[in-house]
Structures are given as C-alpha cells and as structure tokens.
C-alpha cells in the first residue's frame, strides 16, 4: 500500500476572537491508498478544519499557516488557486454532514451531478446526463430517471446523502473526504450509507478520510483511526489497536464513556403505575388554507403503555416514528385526538386549562436541545425558580431550592446568576434537569435529552440521571433513538414504528430476544454493534 496523501506539520490559524489561536497545530498523518481512515474527536477538536484545509475550502479569515499536504507529488497548500480547483471534485471529492443544506434547493439533482463534469470540462452534455444517470443507479437511488429530475426537497435525508455521494464519485477521485456524512441520519439510514461508502470505496479503490465523532461508526468501517483533541492528534493506529488497546488517556476516556450494550438485569416492576396511557391517537393535519390540499400525518396510532413508580421506560424508534409526539402528548403540549392519559389515575385530558396549569407540576420534561430550551434572556436562577413561583411557592424559598438543585446537578452556586449562553452544552443540560426537578414532579419525560451532547458529556449526564432517579425515586420516560443509550438507563423499552408501539418489554428481552421484525432491523443497524458487544464482554 502506498501513500495517497501525506500531511506534515499542518497548522491552521483561527482569526482573532476565536476560542483558540489555532484550529489544529503541528499535526502530521498519512492517508494510504485504498484505506478508510477515520478521524474522531469531540466537537471543536479541529476535524472539519483539517478536511477543509485539504480541500482548500477554509472559511474566510482561517488560514493554513504552516505545513504541507503532499498529493500526487505536489504540495496542495502551495498550489495556485486554479490548480487546486482543478483537483477538487476531480481527484479529491468531499461529502458533508447536512444533506439538506448541502444541495442547492433550486437545482435538479441531475443537473447538480452533471455540473461536476462541466466544471472539469468532461464529456458532452448528453454524455454527462448519461453518466449522472448511471451514478444515481450506482449509489442505490431508486428510479434514476425520476430522481435525476427531482429537486432536493423531494428526497429524503438518506436519498440526498446518496445524491451527494454520487456527486463526489462522479470523476472517480483518488481521495474521498467525508465530514460526518451520517450524523444527521437515523440509525437504519446511517447503516445503509455506511454500507454504501464501504462498497464504493472497495469498488473504486479510493482512499477515504472519514470524519466522525461516533466510535460505533469507527468500529464499523475504519481501517485506521486518528484521534484528535483540541487541535492535536493524540493517538493514531489501526482500528483494532485504537479500539481495543487505546494508548492515550483521552482515547480511553472517550471509549469508556460510550454506553455499552451490556444489558442490565431486569428489575421486576412491582409498584403501581404513575402514568397510564390508553389507546392514544394523534394525527397532524396541516391545513393549507382555503384552496390548498390538507396533509395529514398519523403520528401516534393507538399507543398504550404504563410507567410504574420509580421505573425508567425507554421509547426507541427511528426518526419520525412518533416518539416525541407521545412525550408531548403526555404533558399536553400536543392535544391528542383521542385516548386517555391517566396520571395517578387522574385523566389529564379532562382538565380545564386552569387545572392543567397546576397539574403540570407533576410531569416535567427535559428537552432535546438544552440551548433552545432555555430562554436566552433569563438568568438561570429565574429559569429554574419561575415554575415553582408560578405554582405558588414563595420567591425566597423557590430561589433557595433552585440553588440547592444546582448543587445537586453538580453546578457551582455562581451559575445561578449567569445567562444560558455562558454555559457549555452539558452544563445547560444539567440546568434543564434542575429545572425539571424544581417542580418536584412524579414523572420526568426526557426527549432525546442526551443526543446533542458529546459522548463524554453524554456519559456524565446519563450518570446523573440514573443517580437522581434512584435517589429520588422518580419515574422516567426516556425517549431516544440511540439504542445503546436506552439499554444503559432503562428498565423497560418500548419500540415505536410509524406511530405504533411494535414491542414493549424489559430491556434484556427486547435486546436479546426481539420479537418484532422491526426491532431486529433496528438492532442490526446500530453501528459497531459487534464491536460494542465484544468490548462489553471484554471489560
């Protein structure tokens, strides 16, 4: 195997006012021909910057200040702009994270693919179309004739990502750089895309630099791995080496933080249910106005389950399966069409708005996006104590309790006087938890409460949740699309598909002896499933 791309002493300077002076500094690595090199690391560690530097697509004011990247005998960084442009798309292709925004919304898919040929003056227009068509077939998009004339908004996320890959492959590049190409996709789609990249890499013999923060993905596809942190490469080596015998502390910490698939022992549920959901249904009807056709989506289709006191029930399922809608219907942020929601035997749906405002105390929610769920203009203290005060708790008492809770979730007392933007993602999520706890609820609904966080922070928050749940005897409805996370925290798991509850049962049953076909697919799609299991048994 020879080297496709060799990077020496790369340094990328950030503009004044950025959180550090260099995005990456002094990094050197090689990309071998026909290998998949995974670059992992936490958010902000400089992965994207490195990739962009190689493509010559650094944002304004961000510059390569040092180093060389030798590709086909030439240093990319010292090439003139025109020569670099000639390489882009031709010898080096790239795909990005967000399939929606990475495609021009106003151009047909076919034209966007054909454009690559045009940029490099290959073929006649008719041939370009021909090739675009066959590429679309190659990346596994159905009905190429139709897709070629479709606009991006008419495609699903996975399909768009396939179209992106088709573009990157158009001229058979020697190197493909993929910057988190599956992060925005749900598990099943992610599995398909990873599969596609693997096959294509093999078929075309490309070198792939694959950026991700998910060790599951690494385990799935990587030949070699580079681990980055704060702009440095802390470890590199073959996939097996890094995953199974990590050298650096940071890598070890990262790996340890990954929820393992080791299935907890089932606790028999003994207590009375705190929440009972009976035959819940919800159909979203988007009325288009006077003459527009109405569009209706059945988000919940006859769902029933119970949550016992002190129990953690997980709801899993792929994107759009109706998980959030269930959670929101329980707290009546969404009005269900029919069905009953009994909280300690009291029907939530029968309450007047006035009563509802009081009843809400008992069920609280932790939101997916910790930043969006905090009013940017309110200090943390008032964010936490506002609810209790509204429910009639004296101000001083509410404040005191809020400070106490901040301590409980592991934040220092000074946090009370700060604004949300002055915290990190994990800290914000803790604030969200404190806020939910402030209301002394019986049940907390956590909707994707950890998905937005980096693995290490994710682990901390999960730890906290488990601790609180056990200490305070809370019930938890834990909504997630990440099966590993669910397995770690939950007592029982409910699997949803297209609004229906397809399976519910203790974690071990669902994971080890799934009954529904869908559950099996879901489990199979988890990236690095084998490795995860191995790791779990090894430790």
């Amino acid at each position, binding site marked *: 195997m020879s080297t496709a791309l060799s990077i020496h002493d790369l340094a990328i300077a950030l503009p004044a006012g950025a959180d550090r002076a260099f995005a990456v500094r002094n990094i050197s690595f090689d990309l071998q021909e026909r290998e998949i090199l995974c670059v992992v690391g936490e958010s902000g560690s400089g992965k994207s910057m490195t990739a962009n530097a190689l493509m010559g697509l650094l944002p304004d004011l961000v510059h390569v200040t040092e180093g060389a990247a030798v590709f086909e005998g030439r240093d990319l960084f010292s090439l003139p702009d025109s020569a670099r442009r000639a390489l882009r798309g031709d010898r080096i292709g790239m795909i990005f994270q967000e399939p929606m925004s990475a495609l021009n919304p106003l151009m047909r898919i076919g034209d966007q693919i054909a454009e690559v040929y045009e940029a490099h003056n290959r073929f006649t227009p008719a041939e370009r179309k021909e090739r675009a068509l066959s590429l679309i077939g190659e990346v596994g998009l159905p009905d190429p004739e139709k897709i070629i004339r479709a606009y991006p908004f008419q495609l699903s996320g996975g399909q768009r990502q396939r179209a992106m890959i088709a573009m990157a492959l158009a001229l058979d590049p020697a190197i493909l750089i993929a910057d988190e190409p599956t992060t925005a996709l749900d598990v099943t789609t992610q599995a398909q895309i990873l599969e596609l990249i693997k096959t294509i890499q093999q078929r075309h013999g490309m070198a792939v630099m694959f950026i991700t923060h998910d060790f599951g993905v690494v385990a799935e596809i990587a030949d070699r791995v580079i681990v980055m942190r704060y702009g440095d490469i802390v470890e590199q080596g073959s996939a097996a080496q890094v995953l199974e015998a990590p050298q650096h502390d940071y890598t070890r910490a990262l790996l340890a933080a990954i929820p393992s698939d080791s299935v907890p022992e089932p606790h028999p549920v003994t207590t009375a249910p705190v929440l009972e959901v009976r035959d819940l249904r919800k159909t979203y009807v988007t009325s288009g106005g006077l003459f527009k056709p109405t569009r209706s989506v059945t988000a919940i289709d006859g769902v029933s389950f119970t949550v016992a006191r002190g129990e953690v029930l997980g709801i899993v399922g792929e994107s759009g399966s109706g998980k959030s809608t269930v959670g929101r219907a329980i707290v009546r942020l969404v009005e269900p069409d029919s069905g009953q929601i009994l909280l300690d035997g009291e029907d939530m749906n029968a309450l007047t708005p006035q009563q509802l*405002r009081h009843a809400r105390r008992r069920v609280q929610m932790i939101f997916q996006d910790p930043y969006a769920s905090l009013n940017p203009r309110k200090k943390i203290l008032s964010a936490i104590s*506002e609810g209790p005060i509204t429910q009639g708790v004296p101000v001083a008492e509410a404040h005191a309790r809020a400070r106490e809770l901040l301590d409980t979730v592991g934040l220092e007392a000074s946090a009370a006087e700060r604004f949300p933007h002055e915290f990190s993602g994990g800290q914000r999520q803790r604030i969200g938890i404190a806020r939910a706890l402030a209301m002394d609820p019986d049940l907390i609904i956590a909707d994707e409460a950890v998905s937005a966080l980096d693995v290490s922070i994710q682990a901390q928050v999960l730890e906290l949740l488990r601790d609180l749940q056990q200490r305070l005897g809370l019930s938890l409805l834990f909504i997630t699309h990440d099966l590993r996370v669910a397995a770690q925290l939950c007592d029982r798991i409910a699997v949803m598909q297209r609004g229906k509850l397809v399976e519910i049962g203790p974690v071990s049953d669902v994971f080890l002896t799934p009954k529904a076909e869908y559950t099996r697919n879901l489990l199979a799609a988890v990236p690095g499933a084998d490795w995860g299991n191995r790791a779990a048994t090894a430790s």
Partner: protein
Amino acid sequence: MSDFMTRFARNRGALLGLLILICVVLLAVFAPLLFPDSPWKMVQRPFLPPLAVEGMPLGTDTLGRNVAAGLVYGARVSLIVGLVSTAVALLIGIPLGALAGFYGGWIDEGAMRFTEFFQTIPSFALAIVLVAILEPHLTSITLAIAIVSWPPVARLVRAEVLSLRRREFVDAARLAGLSNMRILFGHILPNAMSPIIVMASLMVATAILLESSLSFLGLGDPNIMSWGYMIGAARTVIRTAWWLSFIPGVAILLTVLALNLIGEGLNDALNPRLARKGR
C-alpha cells in the same frame, strides 16, 4: 450588555451615525437657547446667502428669516414626528403581530387580512389622504405616519413569534404552568426585541422622510418650522437661492443617514451571527 456595547462600538459607521444623531438631538433640545427668537421671525433682508452677514451663518430665506434657526427648530419636529409615530406604530404593530403569531387560527387570519388590507393601499397615498382628512397638524401627521407604518411591524413580530413559539423554552415555560400572556410577554416578545429595535430605528428614519414629503406637498403643520416645509417653501426660489432648499435637504439626509447607520450597527451588534457575515 457591555458585550453589546463593544460590538456596537466596533462598527465605525454606527458610531458616526450615533455622533450625528446626538448632535441633532442636542441642537433640537437646546434650540431655544441657541436661537431665542422664533424661527418665523423676519430678522434680516431676504435671500442673504450663507455667511454673508454675521449671526446668519446659513443666510436668510424668502422672508428674511434666519435659516439656521429654522434648521434647529426643524430638527425638533423631525425628531418628534419620527419618534412618536414609530412608538405609535410599534404600539399597534407589536400586540397585533404578537397575538396573531401566538394564537394562530382565525385570530391570525383576521389580523393578517387586516394588515394586508393596509398594505394594499399605497402607503404614501394613504398618508396624504389621512392628513388631508384630519387637517394638517402635528398630531394628525404623526398619526397618519404611524398608521401607514405599522403593518411591517406586525408582520415582523408575527414571524418572530411564530418561530419563537416553537422553541423549546416556550414549551418549558408552559410546563412551568405560566399563563399564555406571561409566556407571550415575558418569554417570547423579549426575545423578538432585537429585530424590532433594528426595524424601529429604520422606521424613525422613514418617518422623518415621510413628514418632510408631506410638508413638501403643503400638508405640513403651518405653525411649526420643519425641514420639509423649508424645502417646500424654498422650491419656488430654487433658481435664485438654491441653498435654501439644499441646506435643509442635507439636514434630512444626514439625520436619516445617521439613523440608518445606527440601525445597521444595532443589527450587527444585536445579531452577532450576521455581524460576522457582514464583514
């Protein structure tokens, strides 16, 4: 806050605008000290060019009135009309847009039809008719300008509220048991303030232009000296004394320019995401 100040201060244009505006405000506030006599008083020979006679730095107009005094007193009118009409427009537009965006449904439909209705009539024409009907007076002019300028506010606020009300912190507030009004006015609107403030600064500028246009057409309040009046009155002598229309024109230009610069500065400072792009 200090963060905001530093970001604002980084924008040189905005600082310049602020400087000009402060000058205008100071002149307006201290007009009676600078020129104790009424700006209508005929004090010298007519048609004196600027700097021709001491004490008349900008010369005299068709009746021998001090142009400098007129300019300074005119600043008061422009500022008052600009600020008050903007305030009134905000008072109409914000609640309407907020309720429409928050409640949706028929309230939204009704409010937006109403807004659309006002936007369908060309606004300058409507302002002219309103002033003519109410008879030109400082209050009627201000009111007319407010009436034609609130619809964009309502639309902006509605759009902001629409996007904010889907934000999770609003759900959080709801779960905390807050009433709709408290959610709307305590949580949603404060977060919509930045674009509203930016828009308001530009509305003041537009209102000043509108007032001067109305005045120019002879629909100004005849009891108060305004820049539009000065231009309108000097138009007939533009051939013999061009500076009489030029000077107040420049005054309007500078003030409106200043407000625009401030508006852009605010936009950049209140919206750092955009600020970085602008550069």
